[in-house]
């Protein structure tokens, strides 16, 4: 990466119109989706002046009853959202009075903090008071504040609206959002409530717990001023277990459908990044309303609130003044005293009595529960899985705007949402520290910027991001190395208003995921064209598998959709015991085949015309693809010279770089890189798994050479016998490629062929970045310890990625080298520099900011269980390769034991009968027990070595959501979709959303039908006693026995039952990079094992059931 001569551009004469090409366009990185020209800040979170859709407005009185009814249906008791006073949210209100009241003290407060702030917030001590004011105006998003501030900052805040027609269509500032609707706000947390409503552990249903729970149902009320006086009088549904909960929901399906927006909100929250809608802004505001919870949390926990709050509030206070928060709880109390009905006041008195009687501990646990940090006794809570998708813990920095700006969790995720301030604290918590990143994820809306100078820190080269400090209008302080840098003139220019002013209006400072179009300093050579080379195995086994037909037909249909421009080139090599090159020279009427028999010393038969421009030679290429499938039908060569073919492709592409796609069907047995079969089929079920390591380093060395020439190698294995993926995968691992595996592939098997075709189609048409590098920077004091994924590590923080694809995920273990006690937050920044298929050099930057804490309890409660599992599985793969499988399995169990032990120690629980876990880690044992039964790590079950190695490679490279779905698939009941909750999808259709069931046979009812979503594959299992209505209307078959064993498609029937299931399946597919394949089977089908082996909680011969696993943990946790 060229990192020079940016500084001479920094000093532009004042007033000179900067050569800013403006901001390009929002760019749709999903090539298939329509590219809409968006202003560069259409992402919602930062655009404050959006109208709030009608369904998000506060409910009118006549709907309140219905809504609250819905609450009880939804099992939403809004318990877990302690209200703050409405004042807290007035950043979006037009109410000037409130605003003034609040911003003034905020400023004063900040000033007072500054006087003492040199120690407290080292980042901000240079700050001048004027910039406080400017920030009030700009970041408070309030027009009303402008009067207080200097004229300089008098800018319309719907920045972006004047130039770009898209935003003009939106109402202007005048239509400011109304006061935050309290009802909706509570709805934005259905998940938390679901937990709370879940079966209360019997052992904890003692008075101790009764109190806090009682307290909690009250709690939200306190902040419901007058709007909903009888809110809590609605009979709440007493729920014993999730099983009994479902019927209650079913009772009122109609009313559910009347208020789809409730579910929709939940849906949107999960989907914010992908489907930003006007509603998003409010959603996010609501989501961020949780912020004060945390603050109040610390208020209560620490006996010295005054000490604590300034720190949190002042995290970035010089930019975004925060409200004085310390007396907020008192205000709430006052509120409630005035507004709640008599009946509840009595209840409250009762409660207070309880409080007086009970010990401090009870108060503590009550508050814990209130803030979502309550714990569970796993042994008493068999149904631990939430009914909907597991919620991603949010990062709270103590400032809404900064929280909004943070990187989306599906791109960048840390194993804990709060970073321990030193290594010993981290060790005490026993949690692994690391980040998972999915840098090239398909994003629907991505701000793209083209400018002369990309503003970066001069010492550490960090890109400017929302978490930097603006010391004044000319200087900024890097948030990673804390160097003070100059701000180029250009950066203060706002292309929309054509004025100079505050730099915080720039998109770079407003959003954490951004893409730059890189100037020529970032190129070592002219951006390369898209070059694709296909290597086709034509040995006997390959011909017999028939994969060639599929590949050629898919390729033929997708030739025009290959990402690229007019320079795109393609080439083909077929190989068995010899190499077959295809020349597409000018003047040839059909491709010319040249066979090279000398595979030990590979040479190219002709220098050019092997890789040809796709558009010029489209006819020849199509011709070849039509001929290829049957061309080698009579060949009986059994050997496969993969190594030689790869060497030849290296020679062909060394000067340009590009992508090599290999289709391998058999073990390469001749030529360079020849392998022998190492697998002993009789040892498949053994506990000692050998040969996880490569047999030789030929492929690794070749991969390193390829990596140096910007060539990536991707492999499709369509094998029927052992192909030694452990060795061959080296070529993908170190060249930044990817791997697909279709064991026992036969094109004649419809389901296999279909999934192969889908995979290939997605593979060919997805976005691709060439000659890429990714650099991960982190704040001083942290270092990246180990990288996981497919790449070559070129230096301590630089990954060389010849190709980057949207399905590649990476993981990094992080270690704390120095104490972080003098900073309030730390940042990770990943910058991916790549050449797009259109020949543009681009940089995609993701920044994630995390707060630093020094409290062990807080750290444990901030754990992100899914991310931990993602990182652990990567570490375990390394462990099993370096050491052996049983070590890795043991390590998993030890991690669970360690974490639970440290939690127990941190809570001072002493000897309890149960196995206590914090809320945020309650699924960890479940996932770990599932991992121990996964293909990669199971022992004692017959597993082909190739399958195991491939599963391990997947663990290293899959993005987290896919990985979790592979480890623990989602199970939905689909026989009663008409009775289920509905949510709204993108097209405003109502999708039935059944609850997710735990993977246990006890959830499988003989009169049901169940859909299991395993990521790339879905199975619907139909049990024998299912209603004939389901068979007739949904599956379109007359009776149970007429479901064929080869049913790979859900028929489209003209009735709503069938359409509901279609909607559900489509909805589940929407979240995936490609549609999953579907298989429908009877529970007596010969394939049923595919489904039943995924019931991971049940005992199998060689592995413990989930409950037994817990028992085991219990005995180990000290």
């Amino acid at each position, binding site marked *: 990466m060229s990192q020079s001569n940016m500084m001479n551009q920094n000093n532009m004469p004042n007033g000179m119109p900067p050569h800013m090409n403006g901001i390009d366009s929002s760019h749709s990185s999903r090539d298939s989706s329509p590219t809409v020209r968006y202003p560069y800040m259409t992402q919602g979170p930062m655009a404050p002046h959006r109208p709030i859709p009608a369904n998000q407005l506060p409910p009118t009185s006549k709907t309140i009853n219905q809504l609250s009814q819905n609450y009880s249906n939804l099992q939403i008791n809004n318990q877990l959202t302690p209200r703050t006073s409405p004042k807290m949210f007035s950043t979006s209100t037009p109410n000037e009075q409130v605003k003034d009241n609040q911003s003034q003290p905020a400023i004063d407060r900040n000033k007072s903090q500054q006087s003492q702030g040199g120690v407290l917030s080292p980042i901000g001590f240079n700050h001048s008071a004027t910039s406080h004011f400017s920030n009030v105006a700009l970041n408070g998003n309030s027009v009303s504040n402008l009067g207080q501030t200097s004229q300089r900052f008098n800018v319309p805040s719907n920045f972006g609206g004047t130039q770009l027609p898209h935003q003009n269509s939106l109402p202007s500032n005048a239509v400011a959002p109304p006061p935050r609707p309290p009802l909706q706000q509570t709805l934005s947390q259905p998940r938390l409530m679901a937990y709370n409503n879940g079966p209360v552990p019997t052992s904890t249903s003692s008075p101790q717990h009764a109190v806090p729970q009682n307290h909690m149902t009250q709690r939200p009320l306190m902040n419901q001023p007058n709007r909903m006086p009888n809110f809590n009088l609605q009979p709440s549904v007493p729920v014993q277990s999730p099983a009994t909960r479902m019927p209650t929901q079913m009772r009122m399906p109609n009313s559910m459908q009347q208020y789809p927006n409730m579910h929709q909100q939940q849906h949107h929250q999960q989907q914010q990044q992908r489907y930003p809608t006007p509603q998003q802004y409010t959603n996010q505001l609501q989501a961020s309303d949780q912020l004060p919870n945390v603050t109040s949390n610390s208020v209560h926990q620490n006996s010295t609130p005054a000490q604590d709050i300034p720190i949190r509030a002042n995290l970035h206070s010089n930019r975004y003044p925060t409200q004085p928060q310390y007396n907020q709880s008192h205000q709430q109390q006052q509120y409630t005293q005035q507004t709640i009905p008599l009946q509840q006041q009595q209840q409250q008195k009762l409660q207070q009595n309880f409080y007086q009687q009970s010990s401090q501990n009870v108060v503590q646990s009550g508050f814990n529960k209130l803030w979502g940090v309550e714990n569970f006794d796993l042994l008493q809570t068999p149904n631990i899985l939430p009914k909907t998708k597991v919620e991603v813990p949010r990062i709270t920095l103590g400032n809404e705007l900064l929280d909004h700006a943070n990187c989306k969790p599906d791109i960048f995720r840390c194993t804990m949402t709060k970073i321990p301030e030193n290594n010993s604290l981290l060790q005490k918590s026993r949690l692994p520290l690391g980040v998972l990143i999915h840098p090239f994820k398909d994003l629907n809306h991505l701000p793209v910027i083209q400018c002369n100078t990309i503003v970066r820190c001069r010492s550490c080269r960090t890109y400017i991001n929302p978490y930097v400090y603006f010391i004044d209008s000319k200087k900024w302080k890097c948030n990673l190395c804390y160097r003070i840098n100059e701000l180029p003139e250009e950066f203060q220019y706002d292309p929309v208003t054509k004025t100079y002013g505050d730099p915080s209006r720039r998109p770079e400072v407003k959003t954490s995921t951004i893409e730059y179009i890189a100037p020529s300093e970032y190129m070592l050579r002219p951006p390369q064209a898209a070059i694709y080379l296909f290597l086709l195995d034509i040995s006997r086994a390959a011909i017999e598998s028939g994969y060639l037909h599929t590949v050629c037909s898919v390729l033929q249909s997708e030739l025009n959709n290959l990402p690229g421009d007019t320079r795109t080139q393609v080439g083909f090599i077929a190989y068995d015991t010899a190499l077959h090159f295809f020349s597409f020279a000018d003047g040839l009427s059909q491709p010319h085949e040249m066979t090279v028999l000398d595979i030990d010393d590979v040479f190219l038969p002709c220098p050019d015309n092997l890789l040809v421009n796709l558009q010029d030679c489209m006819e020849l290429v199509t011709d070849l693809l039509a001929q290829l499938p049957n061309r080698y039908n009579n060949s009986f060569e059994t050997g496969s010279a993969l190594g030689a073919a790869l060497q030849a492709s290296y020679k062909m592409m060394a000067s340009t770089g590009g992508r090599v796609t290999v289709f391998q069907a058999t073990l390469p047995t001749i030529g360079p890189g020849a392998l022998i079969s190492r697998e002993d089929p009789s040892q498949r079920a053994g506990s000692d798994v050998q040969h996880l*390591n490569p047999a030789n*380093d030929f492929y*690794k060395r070749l991969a*390193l050479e390829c990596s140096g020439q910007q060539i990536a190698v991707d492999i499709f294995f369509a094998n029927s016998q052992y192909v030694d993926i452990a060795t061959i995968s080296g070529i993908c691992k170190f060249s930044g490629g990817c791997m697909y595996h279709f064991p026992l592939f036969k094109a004649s098997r419809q389901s296999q062929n279909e999934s192969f075709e889908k995979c290939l189609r997605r593979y060919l048409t997805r976005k691709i970045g060439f000659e890429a590098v990714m650099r991960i920077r982190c704040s001083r004091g942290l270092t990246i310890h180990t990288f996981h994924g497919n790449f070559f*590590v070129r230096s301590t923080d*630089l990954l060389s990625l010849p190709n980057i694809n949207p399905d590649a995920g990476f993981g990094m273990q992080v270690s704390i080298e120095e104490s972080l006690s003098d900073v309030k937050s730390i940042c990770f920044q990943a910058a991916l520099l790549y050449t797009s298929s259109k020949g543009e050099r681009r940089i995609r930057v993701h920044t994630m900011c995390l707060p630093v804490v020094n409290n062990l309890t807080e750290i444990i409660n901030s754990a992100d269980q899914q991310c931990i599992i993602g990182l652990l599985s990567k570490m375990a793969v390394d462990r099993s390769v370096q050491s052996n499988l049983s070590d890795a399995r043991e390590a998993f169990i030890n991690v669970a034991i360690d974490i639970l032990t440290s939690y127990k120690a941190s809570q001072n629980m002493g000897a309890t009968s149960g196995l206590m876990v914090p809320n945020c880690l309650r699924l960890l044992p479940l996932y770990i027990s599932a991992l121990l039964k996964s293909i990669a790590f199971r022992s004692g079950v017959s597993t082909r070595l190739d399958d195991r190695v491939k599963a391990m490679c997947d663990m290293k490279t899959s993005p987290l959501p896919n990985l979790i779905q592979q480890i623990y698939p989602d199970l939905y009941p689909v026989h009663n979709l008409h009775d289920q909750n509905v949510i709204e999808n993108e097209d405003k259709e109502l999708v039935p959303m059944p609850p997710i069931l735990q993977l246990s046979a006890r959830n499988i009812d003989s009169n049901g039908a169940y859909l299991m979503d395993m990521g790339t594959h879905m199975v619907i299992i139909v049990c024998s006693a299912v209603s004939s209505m389901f068979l007739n209307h949904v599956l379109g078959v007359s009776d149970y026995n007429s479901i064929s064993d080869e049913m790979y498609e859900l028929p489209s029937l003209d009735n709503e039952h069938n359409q509901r299931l279609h909607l559900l399946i489509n909805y589940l597919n929407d979240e995936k990079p490609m549609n999953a394949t579907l298989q429908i089977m009877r529970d007596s089908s010969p394939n049923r094992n595919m489904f039943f082996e995924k019931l991971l909680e049940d005992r199998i011969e060689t592995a413990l059931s989930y409950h037994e696993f817990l028992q085991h943990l219990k005995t180990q946790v000290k």
Partner: protein
Amino acid sequence: MAFNFPAFSYIIALIVDAFLIFFSLFHVIAFDELKTDYKNPIDQCNSLNPLVLPEYVLHLIFNILFVAAGEWVSILINIPLIAYHINRYRTRPVMSGPGLYDPTSIMNADTLTRCQREGWIKLAFYLLSFFYYLYGYVIALENAHVNPEHVT
């Protein structure tokens, strides 16, 4: 006879040990360069790998001399390092050429710190043993000088 076989083996050990000190210095510097991003791991491994076996062989050579000379104390001091070398080479990553270092795993922080620490420890060991060999050389000469007197 003023110069005997033990003295010879010590003088060889002294010379070879000086080389080994340079080897381990180079080793330490090389890993430091890797850590501070000055060098590409592929180049660095290519320059380090050819030196691994010579280092081991050199170390083995003077130990064989010690055995021949019957210098048991010196042997005892060196046996742990020989054992470490053998084990280290036995458990090296799969690679076709000679050497220990694999460019794909060398940047792993654990490996890097381990290699660096190994370099420092070896440097210290070779330095200390350098003075020990000097001492041994003098003693051997002394013995050679004294013994004939006793005999006569």
